[in-house]
């Protein structure tokens, strides 16, 4: 194919594109702010879209908690004698995720904005280890919750939500170790957008962990709850 579909001289399109590229480059270099590349913007929007869809996913579990509590079918939302697992477990697993988020942010701030890559690496390793601690605590909690799995609506919601959150945490922990490893190798020196984007996801996950703790350990056991 050698004819230009437009009927114009065949190099016009290329010339216009070249001009546009040159203009974009000069704008980028003249501006005071860093202009993100297309791939960087795509990475950010991809991760944001992912956690928005994950939010709809987790909303179903929170809706189940609200719905079953309101309906209280046969009075079996929270039968007498049913209690949450040891509070210490809930606090540790949630605090570990929140601290992981903080460690990540601390590392990200130092690495990406102050160019201190040792701090980036340290922050990411700390986040990965804290998430691992949370995974282990979740597994202990689910293995010996202290109630029968047939013990009513609350128990069902507890197992479903904590089980799902644990699965997500396992995946995030694996990725965190990988990202920490890449930071150790100095692979984020050129572009740290992956760190930034995944940091948003870790932040979102911390919020979900906190909401889970409030929905399963605190709210149903308020005097007015259940």
């Amino acid at each position, binding site marked *: *194919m*050698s*004819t*230009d*579909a*437009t*009927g*114009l001289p*065949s190099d*016009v*399109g*290329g010339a*216009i*594109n070249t001009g*546009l590229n040159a203009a974009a480059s000069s704008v980028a270099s003249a501006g005071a702010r860093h202009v993100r*590349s*297309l*791939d960087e*913007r*795509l990475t950010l*929007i*991809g991760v944001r*879209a*992912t956690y*928005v*869809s*994950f939010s*709809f*996913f*987790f*909303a*179903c*579990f929170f*809706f*189940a908690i609200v*719905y*079953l509590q309101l*309906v*209280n*079918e*046969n009075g*079996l939302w929270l039968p007498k004698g049913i209690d949450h697992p040891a509070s210490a477990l809930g606090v540790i697993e949630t605090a570990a995720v929140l601290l992981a988020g903080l460690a990540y942010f601390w590392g990200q701030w130092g690495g990406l904005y102050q160019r201190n890559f040792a701090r980036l690496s340290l922050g990411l390793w700390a986040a990965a280890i804290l998430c691992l601690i949370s995974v282990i605590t979740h597994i202990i909690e689910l293995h010996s919750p202290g109630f029968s*799995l*047939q013990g*009513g*609506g*609350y*128990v*069902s*919601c507890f*197992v*479903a939500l904590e089980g*799902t959150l644990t699965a997500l945490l396992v995946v995030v922990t*694996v*990725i965190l*170790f*990988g*990202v920490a*490893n*890449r930071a150790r190798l100095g692979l984020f020196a050129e572009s740290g957008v992956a760190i930034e984007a995944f940091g948003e996801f870790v932040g979102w996950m911390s919020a979900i962990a906190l909401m889970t703790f409030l929905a399963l350990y605190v709210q149903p056991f308020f005097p007015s709850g259940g």
Partner: protein
Amino acid sequence: MAVAVAAATPRSRSWLLRPNVFTAILGAIIGFVLVQWGLGHDGGLLTQSGGLGWEIDQINLAAYGVGVLGFFIGLGYLNHPIKWLFGYHPRADEQADAYGVGAGTEKYFRLCLDHKVIGIQYLVVVIAFFCIGGFTAMLIRTELLTPNVRLVDPEVYLSLVTEHSVTMLIMASSIIIGPFGNYFVPLMIGAKRMAFPRVEALSFWTFLLALLTLPTMFFFGGDQGGWTGYAPLADQLHLGHNAYITAWALAGFSMTVSAINILATVLLMRAPGMTWTRLTTTVWAVIVGSILAWLAAPIMVAVQLMVAFDRAFLTGLFVPVQGGSAFLYENVFWTFGHPEVYILAVPAFGIILDILPVFARKPVYTYKAAVVAMFGIGLLSWFVWQHHLFVSGLTPGLRPFFMFSTEMISFPTGIIFLAGLGTLFGARIRFTSAMLFALAFFPNFLLGGFSGIFVSDVPADVQLHGSYFVQAHFHFVLMGGTLFAFFAAVFYWFPKMTGRKLNETLGQIQFWPMFIGFNGTFLTLAIVGMAGMSRRYATYEPSLQTLNVIATLFAFLLGLSIIPFLINLVVSWQWGERAAENPWFSRSMEWLTVTPVPPDNFEEIPLVVAGPYQYGMGQRQVGPMAIVKPSESASGGAVTAGS
């Protein structure tokens, strides 16, 4: 960051020895068998006597999980992410190989990141599973030739109903967005690639795995739950229901990631000059369908996961005697279920409005109103789910709102209808096969819409709920709308995808039996439904036999109409008439690049200077839609994995 890589160096190993679809299926089988019959057999590690004491459903669901993992290991999908985590960056030749640069037909049988290859992979899988779903429909209709059980026993009959409905729904969820969204959206917006090629490939392979997983239910007693899989029945069904859970979870995941990829592509990768009002209706419709899939599909994954918890761990989310509620399932399921209808239907609207102007040589009538209407449908689809629950005993006070909101959908749908009819008004129409299928959309969807008014109306729905009238209604909407749009799209875009045209005579031989068979089948079934015949029973009142025989004969005609299509597809792909680069004289961007489309789509990003529908402007003749630098090489020697 632009990463231009050189042509792939030929691989020394035969492609059959590298990860491909067959090794993926083998990996899935090995993973599944290892858990189900290796560790899960009597006395196996996972069982009571083996020590771990897993329930039978736990073992079965774990087997499906490991099977999924085995599939992706066998496919080689996990190689790149794992290497990335270990700090490895792919070499240029590996990158080119991943995009299928310089590869032959084998690239269609393995993981490939080129959106055009993925589009064709989707197309073939959609057609294959449409045939499988259609075959099960023929078995169902054959059984219903007589009022007594003849062909299969009632349990198998219900499993066939599940297989048919779920296969068709999963397949149809991607029937437009899968093949045509993936292939053409980047071309229509002037992009060189999709935003996330690996995510795009993931969406395809997960989609395929979902469709492959579903029939495995027949190894475990089948699944009698129908496509809705209502709880608490779902908690009590055979092990086969775990295949349903796995298939829907995979399909939901596939739809979600596909949507994220497409939305990011359209948002950030439009060519210079490609303003929002210059997008084709196909792109707009794919955007609306993708937004719905992005937000609704995760809900389906969540609700199936909840069923899995109930079955595997004996929790009681949907079991009233355990403090659960069946209404919880119905509410969450239909929060996905009704947007799902428009995930299927809205992309079809876009295709129809895209094809009509080409063969009518007129601009789309009220383009902007049609686009707004698509968004209106998408928005309203979130507020209608309880019309599926009118007879469930749920709070009667909610009924008027949901009746009203459902009937409100007629307004935006009517606008799209009028946009189509206005485009045709006074036009000199070219009746190609593509146009015939596009035109058939109107009577089919009109019947779907009219019958929908009855079932959205509470007093009528109370009478018609669960009857063949409802079944006829949703087939008019989904099959009459989506499937005919699909065939219109195949005939329209086949020349760009393959470089050859489908045979027009065979197209007409397919169209008329399909149109007559389809309408004959479902108009008859609507009457059968009004006469009181319920869905999902292998038997019925003997007085309804004549109507059922008529419906079955029309269904056979419908089934047979697919044969000329398959012949046309195979023969034309191989030996068909070579197509000109723009055989339909369309204005839109996908026709401005060469055929076959090179790996980079366009040598340079085009500059868009006009809209796609400025047909028949007379003296005010406008130029082409975009200024494109022609590609020198059709086979391509480079791929730009960045920009």
